[in-house]
């Protein structure tokens, strides 16, 4: 502990010029790798936990895709693994729904929230703003350990006898409130809620820290308008999380009360399994408001870091400044504000007041404007660049492609009259998987490939990176593009089997194809995982401080920075992060003072 205090003191009092930095810690294994307060180690902990969760969440989708692709086939080996959940080699409906629910919960919260912003906010904020660590390394460490606790509880819920939560990741009551209505709504649901409560604590501790750090601990010369776009994106992400996660917490706690203490916040007029319940006066719709007040900002919590990192990577590898920096910041801000004002577009068919609905249509489609600005600015950034296709760059380009494809279908769903028809069909699955799921994964992959050298002092294997990218982007489109057609045929989400439906059974062949591609894409993600862990220890060594020729501050640290990041003084910043190709120079780092003969632009 004392070492941390001395570190903090050095941050607070000297800020610069503390040469005792190199040799002051006596670190044990526990303090270095387990209860570490170094933001870089915490980032790696978040990333690796996220990867483990991603494998589990992805595997779940492969298993339920087996059911969707081959509804009449039985897989005896499934019974070996899953026991009574796959009696006779056939997935039971209860467990199918449990898998769907956990797939969503795991990927939305544990991978694309904690794994994505937990990793990159922790890793990049201090490094890119020029700080030795987060404002509170202690809270930062707790943020990871609360996430770990949430993970343990969620993992435990997978093994309870009645199964994990199975009412969909949105856990709408009364289904999620009544054990009689679904076996997943027994103890599994309590564990889900407790786990989410821990998760929210983790997210709040992290978010407050990120905001404080960005606002207070920027190095000399690093004004807000000189911040790299990654930091702006992570800043708005943290703001969204801090303001919206508590609302979900309230919803989760009220639901726990309804489940265990006999309250009626969300329950009224219910007869379940032949039993008349005494609950009266609650509203099932209230929960949906509380849920989506987080739930919608949540999709931007997932997406904004991917936007920020892609902006940075596109600019670095195009060797060109990001186009319209201020417009990029403004559009991030606009998205951040609008994210709070559109939640009810998930509820157009709940019997919502039509006038209220119309306001939400207007505000929802308004989001298309900042999104369009971002897309065109990314395109213009590529225009007349000198593009290097590193694996990170490929993923960033893939991100833009997917963001366009998935974003455009949002215009369909945000328009309430069309949403009536498309709501809860495969069209919705296609939309949000492309724009929020796959696109954010691409942003995350881009970030991992780009900053892996800084994280581990080694490179990821390029060839495997290229294979990973091309199979993933082709596979993602093959999986999700045809789903739009299923949705336009009215095919509902979350169906275990379509073969009894005259209206939907004609897509059997397509479902099989999608399942096959999903398995291939999942296998290629495992290739990435192999590449990741192999390269940590055996990858090609990084030999220069600034392998990508980037301007930002993290590349001025040593190749393997210790706790405190910079030896000696924290560098001073003299310019924005995007002086690429200016005045005939390939790049000018942020630490380079503005020359006398330099052109005025920025």
């Amino acid at each position: 502990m004392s070492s941390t205090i001395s570190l903090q003191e050095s941050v607070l009092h000297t800020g610069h010029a503390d040469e005792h930095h190199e040799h002051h810690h006596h670190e044990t294994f526990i303090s270095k790798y387990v209860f570490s307060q170094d933001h870089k180690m915490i980032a790696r902990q978040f990333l690796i936990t996220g990867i483990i969760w991603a494998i589990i969440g992805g595997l779940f989708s492969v298993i339920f895709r087996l059911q969707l692709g081959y509804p009449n086939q039985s897989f005896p080996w499934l019974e070996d693994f899953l026991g009574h959940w796959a009696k006779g080699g056939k997935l039971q409906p209860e467990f199918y729904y449990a898998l769907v629910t956990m797939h969503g919960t795991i990927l939305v919260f544990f991978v694309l929230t904690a794994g994505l912003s937990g990793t990159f906010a922790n890793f990049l904020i201090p490094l890119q703003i020029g700080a030795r660590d987060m404002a509170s390394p202690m809270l930062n460490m707790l943020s990871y350990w609360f996430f770990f606790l949430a993970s343990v509880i969620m993992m435990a819920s997978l093994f309870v006898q009645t199964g994990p939560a199975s009412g969909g990741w949105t856990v709408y009551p009364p289904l999620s409130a009544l054990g009689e209505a679904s076996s997943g709504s027994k103890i599994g649901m309590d564990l889900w809620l407790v786990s989410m409560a821990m998760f929210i604590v983790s997210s709040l501790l992290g978010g407050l820290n990120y905001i404080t750090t960005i606002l207070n601990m920027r190095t000399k010369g690093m004004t807000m308008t000189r911040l790299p776009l990654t930091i702006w994106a992570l800043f708005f992400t943290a703001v969204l999380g801090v303001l919206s996660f508590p609302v979900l917490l309230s919803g989760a706690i009220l639901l726990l009360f309804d489940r265990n203490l006999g309250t009626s916040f969300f329950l009224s007029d219910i007869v379940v399994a032949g039993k008349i319940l005494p609950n009266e006066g609650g509203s099932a719709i209230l929960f949906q408001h509380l849920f989506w007040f987080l739930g919608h900002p949540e999709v931007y919590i997932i997406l904004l870091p991917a936007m920020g990192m892609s902006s940075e990577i596109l600019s670095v590898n195009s060797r060109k400044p990001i186009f319209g920096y201020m417009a990029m910041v403004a559009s991030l801000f606009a998205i951040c504000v609008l994210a709070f004002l559109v939640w009810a577009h998930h509820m157009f068919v709940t019997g919502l007041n039509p006038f209220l609905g119309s306001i939400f249509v207007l505000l929802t489609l308004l989001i298309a404007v900042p999104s369009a600005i971002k897309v065109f600015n990314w395109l213009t950034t590529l225009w007349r660049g000198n593009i290097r296709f590193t694996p990170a760059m490929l993923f960033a380009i893939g991100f833009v492609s997917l963001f366009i494809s998935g974003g455009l279908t949002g215009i369909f769903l945000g328009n309430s009259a069309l949403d009536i028809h498309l709501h809860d069909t495969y069209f919705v699955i296609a939309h949000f998987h492309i724009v929020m799921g796959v696109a954010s994964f691409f942003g995350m992959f881009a970030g991992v490939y780009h900053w892996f050298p800084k994280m581990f002092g080694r490179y990821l294997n390029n060839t495997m990176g290229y294979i990973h990218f091309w199979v993933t982007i082709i596979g993602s489109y093959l999986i999700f593009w045809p789903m739009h057609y299923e949705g336009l045929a009215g095919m509902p989400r979350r169906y275990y089997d379509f073969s009894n439906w005259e209206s939907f059974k004609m897509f059997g062949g397509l479902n099989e194809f999608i399942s096959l591609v999903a398995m291939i894409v999942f296998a290629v993600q495992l290739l990435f995982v192999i590449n990741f862990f192999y390269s940590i220890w055996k990858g090609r060594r990084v030999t220069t401080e600034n392998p990508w020729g980037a301007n930002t501050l993290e590349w001025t640290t040593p190749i393997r920075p210790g706790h405190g990041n910079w030896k000696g003084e924290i560098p001073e910043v003299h310019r924005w992060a995007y002086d690429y190709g200016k005045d005939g120079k390939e790049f000018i780092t942020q630490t380079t003072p503005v020359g006398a003969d330099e052109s005025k632009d920025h």
Partner: protein
Amino acid sequence: MKEFFLVIIVAMIFLVIFQISKASEYVSVLKGEEKSRKQNNKINGFLMVAFLVLGLIGVWYCNELYYGKTLFPQGSASVEGEQVDLMLYITIGVTGVIFVITQVLLFWFAFKYQEKEGQKAYFFPHNNKLELLWTTVPAIFLTVLVVFGLKNWFKFTNDAPKNSVLVEITGHQFAWDMRYPGKDGVLGKKSYKLYNQPLGNTLGVDFEDPESWDDLHTTVMHLPVDKPVKLVINAMDVIHDVGLSHFRMKMDAVPGIPTTMWFTPQYTTEEMKVRTGNPNFVYEISCDQMCGKGHFSMRGVIVVESEADYNKWLASQKPEYFTLHPEKNPGGNNQAVDSTQSAPIAIAVPKSN
């Protein structure tokens, strides 16, 4: 055994890819990293444009394969749904153009401006005119879509026409139940507290209320063609959703909060058999809100028929009151036969509201 070999094969493929990747890294170190980086750059630049071309062909091919299976070729089975289809076409048109333009630019720029010897990136940090252009143009397009959408939204969510046929539909795990108001045109009162499985009162109808005495309880929904129908939607246990994809309509069924929805069927089931070319065609009610393990099997059937057939069907149904209380039925089945003569059922606010 098959699975076992499959795992072995996949593992072998992994190993091969892994070894090749490792080897290629050694080769690139030997060749000089700069040189192999440039080679990779060329390959990926080419793949960018190949992906664009093959992707656009794929988009077209996918449409060839699956357009026929969507609901577009058969058209909307409700009058209101035609507006939905029109909106869909317009939105697909607008977004389709933007999709093609932006994807082409993205991958074409990536290909065209790939790193070349002696090429310098153009320092172009911002341009207010361009940025203003792509703020306002999308805004204008969106305004058009919003105006069009809201016009329909208000139409769909407005009160049902006065002459609508009234049907109550109640969802429970995992089936649908319908209630028709009988010839008085009013649904009898209902309370979940009156639910009584042994007595057969599964909807909790208040049979003290005389208005409930002529109400019909069925499991298949019959509707007359070309007349607006108003559904009053209830749920007994958890949230369900009345999904009517052929009519382009959908509304949640929420316990404790009745909802409504209206539309005008314009083709009978028999006509739809011809339109779709499917002799087994039925209008299906799909539950579109996750409701438990039987969610995927929560299927209801709607029969749309001519008004004459509809009235004949109505007449053949015995009111639930008399089914449950046979002793109260004075004229045997005569009571029901009378309803053939009754005027089409007028709309009335259901008592449960």
